[in-house]
């Protein structure tokens, strides 16, 4: 399969809402071997001035990869998931993610570049927290590059 070069510049609008739960923050924190009390104990988080449990710095990957799935599963994209290798990743937090946040992500395909028999695809997820009414607040910008390996790579 070959990667569709027309993907560059494509966007996928915010789809389903991701509700950030306390137990999910705790589960993710344990999975990355985090032990800071602000991930586990509401009083400890509030003691640092936060409204609720604080998500670990890479928690946004859950929301970003859900957004990425729209691209990876897009039959027009031509991406074989089993040949995908994560090449780089960046998180820019406009504010921390807290338990109770209701998040949505817009996905932008910023770059598609042929590499050997494969391709490097760079995506950016703009993650917002939904507020009252139509309001939404920027929470995180995540950028990732994936290498889709060609045969023999």
């Amino acid at each position: 399969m070959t990667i569709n070069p027309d993907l560059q510049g494509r966007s996928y609008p915010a789809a389903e809402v991701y509700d950030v739960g306390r137990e999910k923050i705790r589960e993710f924190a344990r999975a990355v071997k985090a032990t800071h009390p602000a991930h586990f104990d509401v009083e400890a988080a509030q003691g640092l001035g936060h409204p609720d449990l604080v998500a670990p710095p890479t928690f946004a990957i859950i929301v970003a990869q859900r957004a990425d799935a729209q691209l990876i599963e897009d039959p027009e994209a031509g991406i074989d998931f089993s040949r995908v290798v994560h090449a780089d990743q960046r998180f820019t937090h406009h504010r921390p993610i807290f338990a109770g946040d209701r998040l949505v992500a817009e996905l932008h395909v910023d770059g598609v570049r042929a590499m050997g028999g494969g391709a490097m695809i760079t995506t950016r997820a703009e993650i917002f927290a939904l507020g009252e009414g139509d309001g939404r607040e920027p929470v995180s910008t995540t950028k990732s590059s994936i290498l889709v390996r060609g045969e023999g790579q």
Partner: protein
Amino acid sequence: MNPVFEELAIGQDIGSRSIGVTRQDLVKYAGASGDFNPIHWNEAFATGVELPGVIAHGMFTMGAAVQLVTDWAGDPAAVVDYQTRFTKPVLVADTTGTGDAGAVIDVSGAVGALDAETRTARVDLAVVFDGQKVLMKAQVLVKLA
């Protein structure tokens, strides 16, 4: 004691730690993150796509490595930016049932830059597996009080 911006110096060591990783850790990370790519938990699948064996999620390594910085900063919310490149895979041996780690990742950090205007420190992480850096340009921007 949480770090104080005025007391930091470029090159200052923030500490180090070793992280033992098992296949079960990868299954846990898959479940917690939703990334169920079988290259992270199935040997036959991984070798079938020309990998040397089951490898850790890059995001597992990235997520685990930053805990050194979070604990140093005293508040996970202090991490305002975090980036890396994934250069080498972390191959995790199957040690199921033995209690041994299938891989050990060594993480150390040092202050790489200071910005007085934004009161941020950039911590540069060295993340090593099997004698080789597995993350490159692993930089964590920390906002200090």
